[in-house]
């Protein structure tokens, strides 16, 4: 795992250029550019608030829309990192088959680009918090820790999935469907407290659900994430990261032939 980190550092200029390019090409030719990446979470927030809060009279508290938004932003990072990252090796096959391209850079670039979008959307969340008449909590300081843990987790998953996807294109379809399922297993549109005790483990032990809660806690509620939960997610992320590296390394010598 350290090896891959070193490699990424060696190719940091490449990663930097690819991430910039990735973000720039996405909004090329559109007038509102980056603003479009905010539209998706804003629309979802509006719809979920309307449906759950007003239509179904679901009592998510006075700041329901903020909780939804704080959960949606990291979720969108997760989902676009997984979707794009899984397909990243296949989509850039020409680089791998025709030149000595460091393949592991590609999934990392997908995760990083999605992360940049996430980070750029945070000021908007801050504005919403202020508009709701709440103070910006000091717990925002914990954000880097949560983001790093989240990034390690995503990189591990994407490293493995992208490598598998080279050999079985089924993986990218599977990922798309699993994401729909996972979304509702994370406490984005509902608070974790409404989950009955016997199902609570689905939140506690699902690292993505736990991360969602951490974000809501530090960004809105001003609560430090529980140390035990953070350590648990960190350990899971490290294990997933290591597995990702192992799977990736197992397959990497065959990429050029299989693509």
């Amino acid at each position, binding site marked *: 795992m350290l090896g891959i980190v070193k490699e990424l550092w060696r*190719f940091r*200029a*490449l990663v930097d*250029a*690819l991430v910039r*390019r990735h973000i720039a*090409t996405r909004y090329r030719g559109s007038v509102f550019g980056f603003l479009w990446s905010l539209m998706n979470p804003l629309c979802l927030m509006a719809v979920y608030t309307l449906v759950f809060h007003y239509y179904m009279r679901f009592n998510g508290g006075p700041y329901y829309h903020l909780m939804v938004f704080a959960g949606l932003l990291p979720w969108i990072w997760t989902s676009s990192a997984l979707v794009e990252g899984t397909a990243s090796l296949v989509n*850039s096959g*020409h*680089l*791998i*088959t*025709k*030149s*000595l*391209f*460091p393949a592991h850079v590609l999934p990392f670039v997908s995760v990083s680009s999605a992360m940049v979008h996430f980070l750029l959307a945070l000021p908007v969340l801050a504005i919403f918090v202020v508009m709701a008449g709440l103070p910006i909590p000091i717990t925002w300081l914990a954000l880097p820790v949560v983001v790093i843990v989240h990034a390690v987790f995503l990189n591990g998953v994407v490293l493995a999935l992208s490598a598998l996807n080279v*050999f*079985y294109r*089924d993986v990218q379809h599977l990922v798309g469907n699993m994401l729909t399922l996972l979304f509702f297993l994370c406490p984005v549109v509902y608070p974790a407290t409404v989950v009955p005790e016997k199902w609570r483990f689905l939140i506690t032990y699902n690292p993505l659900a736990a991360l969602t809660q951490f974000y809501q806690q530090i960004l809105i509620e001003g609560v430090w994430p529980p140390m035990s939960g953070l350590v648990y997610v960190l350990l899971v992320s490290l294990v997933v990261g290591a597995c990702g590296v192992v799977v990736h390394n*197992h397959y990497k*010598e*065959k990429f*050029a*032939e*299989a693509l």
Partner: protein
Amino acid sequence: MGASLPSQQIEPTKAADAVEYVIDIVKLCKRFARRGRAPQGYTTFKAALLSFFKSKKDLAVVREEPKAFGIEDLTLRIPKGASVGLIGRNGSGKSTFLKLVTGIYKPTSGEVNVKGRIAALIELGAGFHPDFTGRENLMLAGIMHGLTREQILSRYDEIVEFAELGHVIDEPVRTYSSGMFMRLGFSIAIHTDPDILLVDEVLAVGDAGFVAKCKDRISELRKAGKTLVLVTHDLDAVERWCDEVIWLHQGEVKDRGFPRRVIDAYRSFIEKQEQNEILSHEHEVIAQVQSVESDAGDPKGARWGSREIEIVSVETLGSDASEKRVYHSDDTMRVKIAYRVHAAQDEVVFGLGVSRVDGLPVFGTNTDIDRIKMPALKGEGIVECDLKRLGLVEGGYTLDVAVHRADGYPFDYHKDAIHFSVRSERREVGVVSPPRAWIINGERSVC
């Protein structure tokens, strides 16, 4: 084949103790997985998951079988400063070899040891990102070649100038022509201080001016003691450029040594293969016709006549009287026509005609034109005609044969009876190649 020619013996003469090998390949073997049911030969996810836990060696046995483009047991050393041409038919393993040397492919077994920095032009636009501009791709390629940002920036102007792309360098490379791709790729490659330059066929798309410039640059690199590996089908270029040629055939070194000799061997090998292909195709056609058993069903649809005299078979032979379909300009072609007389006739004329494959008539004659007195024919027999010096330029030709009456009444007419090829090292234009000599200021040289 490769084993019978230990490479060390034929290498260009250099002080044996001072030779440094920049590419040292030992018992290299590269096999590709069978494509078909599933890549890697896995059939299901489950099988894949199970095999994940098995050792790699077991898998190699189960899922890998030799196939085209692979390399079998290749041992090869290329000394520093050599200029080596790699030739061979399509699928002989040339590109696979380059990909193994550059490290894009990993060998199934054996070793690839490379000393020094490699710059490879494997394919046009290889490693370029289509949406990036020329400038961005240049930076990225430089980084991938192991240069620092500062190094790239300091060479930036030189690279762009050499590539002659100053006017489009800020356009995305997907808008580039193939020539532009090649110029950019080549320019980057030679400006990264490579110790070994691998070039796979890409120079072919450059215009004459740029190719000349590339060649100057390659000469400079060679003078500076760099190693060049050139893969191409342009045998003239190989002969001009390389001081050694390696001929790959089905993943093995078929021959290696001085360019002239290896290229000649390669050429005659190709001709033989081509001839075999033409002959086996003919046999197939004949088999088809016989199975249909209808003399009107000539596959080429061009046989007519009353058949009082029938042409039973047509063959073209070489000077050794064996069947031949690939000739050189200077070769003698013997056309052998076997006939059978069903009803005796007077004034019988045998004729033959040669056309280019596109239908252009090249030459035609018959026994009447050539004032050959035909005896009375009966039963079966053979008529042969020697075209003493074929005198055609390189290309594909067809042969028509006929037997008819002097007034033109056809007994049996075979159009496109035989397809044959002419090969020539000379690059004449047109159709015919008469024997000739040049006399320059009274000095005569025959060619």
